[in-house]
């Protein structure tokens, strides 16, 4: 298990972006048989309240570009100084190339800036932070822009009452810089994974394993048909392999309860810290119950583990910790210095934690997403590509 210490990396800026459209759990009483009492109970136990949902046709990269743009503008930095762009995403714009190159184009980054995607779920921000720290500490790069983005809420099937009220769409931008002087508050990381849990949270269809091959329609009509054939999932909903994600909630909960608290304790031991010396436990905002349970099992009092981002924006997957930091500490980070333990866990299975000290930095908080003037909706993109492939568009 990698345990790492970094002394020459500074997090200089953070920005989170959420779609302006807000849905409140009390607006959706009809899904709970019109029972306010039931919703009150869900609110109290799980923390369901409000979440942000992107318009259809808005992708994770659209949100991330806006987060990056706002961060760069807010900090007034020279784009030419960015050595690398890392985009953590599970829903790329296209199967290839990496979506980071599309972002590279839209943000007008220089040709000297490398770009790549990282495919990770909820721990993706901490994972990305780790990779960026490694690249900077080794002096391979001096300045890195780390972006995360996900839209788990925008196309969610509202009949899915297990997943639908949970998720919110969001993106984050984090800027990391090299600092010559060794920091008085180094960063500590610990990361682990368990491939045995590969199937516990997964989207099984439409990768190379269950591939859609148009040419096969002539040879074997069943070949593609089976992917789109509806069947009933365990909760009675009609689903198909092309669109549906699968989650074994019980097994994931057991994993979270058994692995994560021990992992947090192990990182604290490595860093010589304890719950008494760490003012903030920034946990992945899965839901209120999970935040409080993990915090308590790791030895933290509940008041050190906020779930405000979950209540206000929903579970924002990869961007949930940046959103929690930007939502709760926005005004403190400009001048103060705040030590925190960030910990996240999710599909893979994967988990990643770090102890970092943030301060004397730019924090743009959580801002509403603004669509770019050149944004193309789904139909426009479809037409664009048809015309382009017919040879009717020449750049």
């Amino acid at each position: 298990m990698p345990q790492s210490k970094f002394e020459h990396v500074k997090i200089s800026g953070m920005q989170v972006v959420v779609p302006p459209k807000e849905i409140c759990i009390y607006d959706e009483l009809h899904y709970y048989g019109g029972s306010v009492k039931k919703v009150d109970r869900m609110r109290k136990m799980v923390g369901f309240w409000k979440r942000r949902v992107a318009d259809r046709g808005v992708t994770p990269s659209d949100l991330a570009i806006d987060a990056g743009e706002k961060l760069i503008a807010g900090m007034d930095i020279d784009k030419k100084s960015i050595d690398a762009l890392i985009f953590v995403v599970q829903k790329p714009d296209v199967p290839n190339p990496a979506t980071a190159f599309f972002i590279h184009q839209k943000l007008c980054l220089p040709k000297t800036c490398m770009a790549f995607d990282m495919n990770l779920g909820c721990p993706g921000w901490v994972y990305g932070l780790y990779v960026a720290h490694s690249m900077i500490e080794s002096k391979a790069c001096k300045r890195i822009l780390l972006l995360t983005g996900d839209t788990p809420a925008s196309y969610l099937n509202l009949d899915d009452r297990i997943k639908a009220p949970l998720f919110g769409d969001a993106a984050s931008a984090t800027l990391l810089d090299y600092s010559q002087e060794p920091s008085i508050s180094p960063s500590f990381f610990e990361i682990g994974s368990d491939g045995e849990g590969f199937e516990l949270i997964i989207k099984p269809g439409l990768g190379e394993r269950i591939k859609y091959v148009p040419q096969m329609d002539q040879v074997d009509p069943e070949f593609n048909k089976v992917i789109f054939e509806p069947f009933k999932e365990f909760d009675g909903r009609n689903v198909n392999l092309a669109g549906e994600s699968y989650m074994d909630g019980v097994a994931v909960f057991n994993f979270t309860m058994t692995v994560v608290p021990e992992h947090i304790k192990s990182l604290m031991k490595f860093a010589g810290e304890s719950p008494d010396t760490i003012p903030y436990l920034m946990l992945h905002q899965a839901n209120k119950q999970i935040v409080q349970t993990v915090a308590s099992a790791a030895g933290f009092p509940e008041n050190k583990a906020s779930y405000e981002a979950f209540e206000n924006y929903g579970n924002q997957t990869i961007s949930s910790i940046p959103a929690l930091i930007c939502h709760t500490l926005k005004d403190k980070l400009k001048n103060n210095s705040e030590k925190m333990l960030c910990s996240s866990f999710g599909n893979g299975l994967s988990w990643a934690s770090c102890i970092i000290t943030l301060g004397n930095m730019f924090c743009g908080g959580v801002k509403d997403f603004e669509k770019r003037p050149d944004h193309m909706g789904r139909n426009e993109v479809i037409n664009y590509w048809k015309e382009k492939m017919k040879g009717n568009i020449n750049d």
Partner: protein
Amino acid sequence: MTKEEFLTELQDTLQRDDQVLETDKLSDYEEWDSLSKMAVMAFFDKKFGKKVSLTELGSFKTVEDLIKFAGL
């Protein structure tokens, strides 16, 4: 923790309006769903330092079974 305190804490954990009695059957509770089971797992872990799996919890029939598991 006394049995009485356990019953009050359980009622709060389940977010149940009605009083919780030792002889109650868990399957009679509308609130005995996966959400509650997870909350009870966390409750045992926090208050008694006892790990229980969801499968194990599913095999408990009455409130008395929970009290026994807690060791009261």
